[in-house]
C-alpha cells in the first residue's frame, strides 16, 4: 500500500533541521512518497516511525540481482510463507563451489564440468545458476587468478567467497559480471560493503544467528541495500529455524533487516546427504544454496524438487496436447486417450510403460484439467475428443479403428462411437488397471 506524503509527514520529527537534505520535513515526506528519499536519511526519526514507514513503503523482500545478461539471477521479491497461499516466484539458485586451490588444467576441468550442469527434464531445461569461487588457499593472488579464470569461462553468475584482502584483489577485475560478494561480517563490513558499493555488486551480510545478523544488517543497510542474508550456518535445524523466522518477520511484521534474499550453505560432506539437506532449504525460503555436489545424477533430483516447489499452484500443470509414442510402436498398437493434465498424462504414461506393450497416448488438450474435471466442464466429451483425435493424425499411424477411453467417462462412448465411427473401447477407471487391460486385449504385442 503506497503512503501519501501527509501520512509519512505525521511520523516525522518535524524539526525542519535540513540534515536529510530536504528544506523541510514536509518536503522530505513528499520526496519519500515519490521514492526519491528513504527514511534512513533522517537522523532524528523515531523507532516507531521506522517501523511504520519501513513497513509501508517497501515490498517485504527486496529484489536483488546477481550477474548480467543471460546469466542474471533474480532473487527475493517473495510475498508468502506457504506456496498454496499464492506461489513462490524466484526459484532457489544453486551455486556450485570451486576452490581457488585448483589451478591450470584442474581448474579448467572443473569449470567445464560445472558448465555441463544443464539438463533437460519434462521438456524444460534445468540448470545450476551460479559458480562459487572460494578462497580456500587464503592467498589473495591465487584467488584473483582463479576468479579471473572462472569469469572468463564459466557460463553462470559468480559468487566470490573470501576474506577482505582476497575480495579486494578479485572483485574489481570481474565487476562487470556483477558477482555476489561473500561476505560482509561484523569485523570487515565497512570495507567489504564499500568495495561492493564501488563495484556495484550485491553483497552477502553474514552474521551469527538472527540477532547478530539483524544488528549487522541495520548498520550495513544505512550504507547499501543490495544485500543477501547469511545467518552463518551451523546445523540444518538451526538454519531452517532462522530462515523461517527471518522470512516470517519480513512478510508478517515487515521487519526490514530481514527483508532480503537468503543464502544457505550445505554442511554435509557426502554428496547424496548434501542434496537431501538442500531439499530443506529449497522448501524453506533459501534464494541461494551454496554446495559442493557437482554430479548431474546428484543435482537432477534437487532441481526437480526446486521446479516442483516453485510451480504456480494456481496454474494446472499441463503437458503439450498431442500424440505421444510409448515404446517401439507399430501399426497394431493400442491408442489410449486421456487429457493433457500433467498428472493424468504421467499416470497413464507410467502404466503404459509398465504394461510392456507399446502404445499411442493422445493427450487431448483440456487446458490441463483432469479426466473428470474435463468431462464436467465439457472439454473432455465426445465432440472435442473426436476433433482432437482426428486432427492429431494418430489414426493414420495405426491399421485398426479402435481408441481406448478412460473408464470414468464410459458414458460418452456411445456418442463418441456415433460421431466418429471409431471402435470406442472403455478402458479401466484408474491408470493402474492399464497393464492388466493391455495384457488381456493385446497379448500378441507383449514383449
Amino acid at each position: 500500500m503506497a503512503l501519501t506524503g501527509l501520512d509519512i509527514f505525521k511520523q516525522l520529527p518535524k524539526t525542519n533541521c535540513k540534515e536529510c537534505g530536504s528544506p523541510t520535513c514536509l518536503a522530505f515526506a513528499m520526496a519519500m512518497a515519490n521514492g526519491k528519499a528513504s527514511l534512513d536519511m533522517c537522523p532524528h526519526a523515531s523507532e516507531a516511525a521506522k517501523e511504520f514507514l519501513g513497513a509501508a513503503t517497501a515490498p517485504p523482500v527486496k529484489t536483488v540481482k546477481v550477474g548480467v545478461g543471460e546469466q542474471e539471477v533474480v532473487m527475493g521479491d517473495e510475498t508468502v510463507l506457504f506456496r498454496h497461499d499464492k506461489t513462490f516466484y524466484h526459484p532457489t539458485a544453486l551455486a556450485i563451489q570451486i576452490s581457488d586451490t585448483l589451478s591450470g588444467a584442474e581448474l579448467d576441468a572443473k569449470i567445464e564440468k560445472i558448465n555441463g550442469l544443464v539438463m533437460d527434464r519434462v521438456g524444460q531445461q534445468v540448470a545450476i545458476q551460479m559458480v562459487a569461487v572460494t578462497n580456500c588457499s587464503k592467498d589473495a593472488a591465487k584467488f584473483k587468478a582463479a576468479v579471473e579464470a572462472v569469469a572468463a569461462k564459466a557460463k553462470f553468475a559468480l559468487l566470490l567467497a573470501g576474506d577482505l584482502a582476497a575480495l579486494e584483489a578479485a572483485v574489481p577485475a570481474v565487476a562487470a559480471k556483477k558477482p555476489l560478494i561473500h561476505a560482509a561480517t561484523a569485523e570487515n563490513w565497512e570495507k567489504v560493503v564499500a568495495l561492493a558499493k564501488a563495484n556495484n555488486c550485491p553483497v552477502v551480510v553474514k552474521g551469527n544467528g538472527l540477532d547478530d545478523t539483524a544488528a549487522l544488517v541495520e548498520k550495513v543497510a544505512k550504507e547499501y541495500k543490495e544485500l543477501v542474508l547469511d545467518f552463518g550456518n551451523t546445523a540444518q535445524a538451526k538454519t531452517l529455524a532462522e530462515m523461517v523466522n527471518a522470512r516470517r518477520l519480513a512478510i508478517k511484521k515487515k521487519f526490514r533487516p530481514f527483508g532480503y534474499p537468503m543464502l544457505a550453505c550445505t554442511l554435509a560432506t557426502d554428496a547424496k546427504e548434501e542434496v537431501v539437506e538442500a531439499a530443506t532449504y529449497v522448501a524453506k525460503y533459501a534464494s541461494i544454496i551454496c554446495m559442493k555436489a557437482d554430479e548431474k545424477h546428484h543435482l537432477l533430483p534437487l532441481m526437480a524438487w526446486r521446479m516442483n516447489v516453485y510451480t504456480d499452484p494456481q496454474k494446472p500443470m499441463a503437458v503439450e496436447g498431442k500424440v505421444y509414442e510409448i515404446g517401439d510402436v507399430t501399426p497394431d498398437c493400442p491408442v489410449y486417450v486421456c487429457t493433457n493434465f500433467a498428472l493424468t498424462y504421467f499416470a497413464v504414461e507410467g502404466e503404459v510403460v509398465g504394461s510392456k506393450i507399446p502404445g499411442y497416448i493422445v493427450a487431448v488438450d483440456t487446458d490441463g484439467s483432469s479426466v473428470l474435471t474435463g468431462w464436467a466442464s465439457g472439454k473432455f466429451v465426445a465432440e472435442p475428443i473426436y476433433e482432437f483425435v482426428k486432427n492429431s493424425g494418430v489414426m493414420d499411424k495405426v491399421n485398426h479403428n479402435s481408441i481406448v477411453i478412460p473408464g470414468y467417462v464410459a458414458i460418452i462412448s456411445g456418442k463418441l462411437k456415433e460421431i466418429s465411427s471409431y471402435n470406442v473401447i472403455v478402458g479401466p477407471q484408474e491408470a493402474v488397471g492399464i497393464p492388466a487391460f493391455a495384457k488381456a486385449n493385446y497379448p500378441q504385442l507383449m514383449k
Partner: protein
Amino acid sequence: MATNMLKERYSGKINTVTLGATKEQGGTRTSTVTVGGDSTMPFLHFEGDMPLKPVIAMEIEDIKPDWHPFLKEVYADVMDNPVAWAKKCVEFGADLIYIKLNGAHPDNGNKSPEECAKVVKDVLAAVGVPLIVVGCGEEEKDNAVLPVVAEAAAGENLLIGLAKQDSYKSVAAAAMVHKHKVLAQSPLDINICKQLNILISELGLAPENVIIDPATAALGYGIEYTYSILERGRLGALQGDKMLSQPVICQIGHEAWRAKEANALEADFPNWGDQGERAILWEAMTAAGLLQGGAHIMVLRHPEAVRLVKKNAEQLMIKPEI
C-alpha cells in the same frame, strides 16, 4: 539489537498414535512405534513440540513383485520369501514393516483370506517391529481378506488399510473389533481426506485410531500437490481441526521407483548421469521434500534411501538454540 522471534500460537496438535503392541500390551511386538504429537509446523522446535521423530516403514510383498532392477539386486535372495525379506528390512533399519498382500489379487494367484492371514502371522513371528498391512487393491477381495487378517492378528495393533471414501466400512469395522489402527487414503484432496476421517469417526472409531494417507505423488510427478496438502492439513490440525489431526503416512517407494528418472538408463539419458545414484536419490528426495510437509511415516524401498532419510530426519530433530 534483539529480534523478537515470531512464534505462532497454535491451539491444536497432531494426535499421538501408537502402532504395535508388546507382550504386556497383548501383542508379541518387541518394540512399538509412536508417531505424532506435534504442536508446530515440521521441525520448528522454537514454537512448539515435535516430541517424536518421523519413522521409516520398509515395504515388502507376499508374492515376488516385479520391482525395479536395483531393488531386485538388493532383495534378490528374499523376494519370494516375505519372512526373510522382512528380517532383511529390519536389518536395514526399518522401524516398521509395510506388507502389501498382492497375492490376494484375483490376477495374482487369488490367495484365500486364510492364506493371507498366515503370511501376516509368519512375518509377525519373524520380526519384532510393528506391521502395516494393506490389501491388494481389489476392493471386493480386500473386504474379504482384511477382516480375516485383522482377526488373526488381534492384539498386535496393526495399521491396516486401505480405507477409502467409498470402501471404508469393512476395514474400519475390522480394526475396531480387533483393536487395530486404520490407514485412511484419500486421492490428493484435502476435502475428501477430511470427509473420510469424519465417516470413519462416525462408525465409532476415535480419531486417535486413524493415520492419514493423502496419496503420495513422486518427485517430478506432482509431489507439490502432496506437499501442499500436507501443509494445509497440518495448519488445519494446529488450528484445532480434529478431523485433520491424524499423523500422516506417505507411500513413497512405490511412486518414486516408477519415475522415469529412476528407470531411464544412463546410456539413453547420458545427460542425467549415473542411474543408480539418481534412482536412489529420487526416492530419498521425495521423502526429504515430504518431511518438510510433515510426513510422520515414510514407506521406502531402498536401504540407501532409508539411510539418507533417517540421517536427514535426525538432523532436523536436533533442537537448536536460537
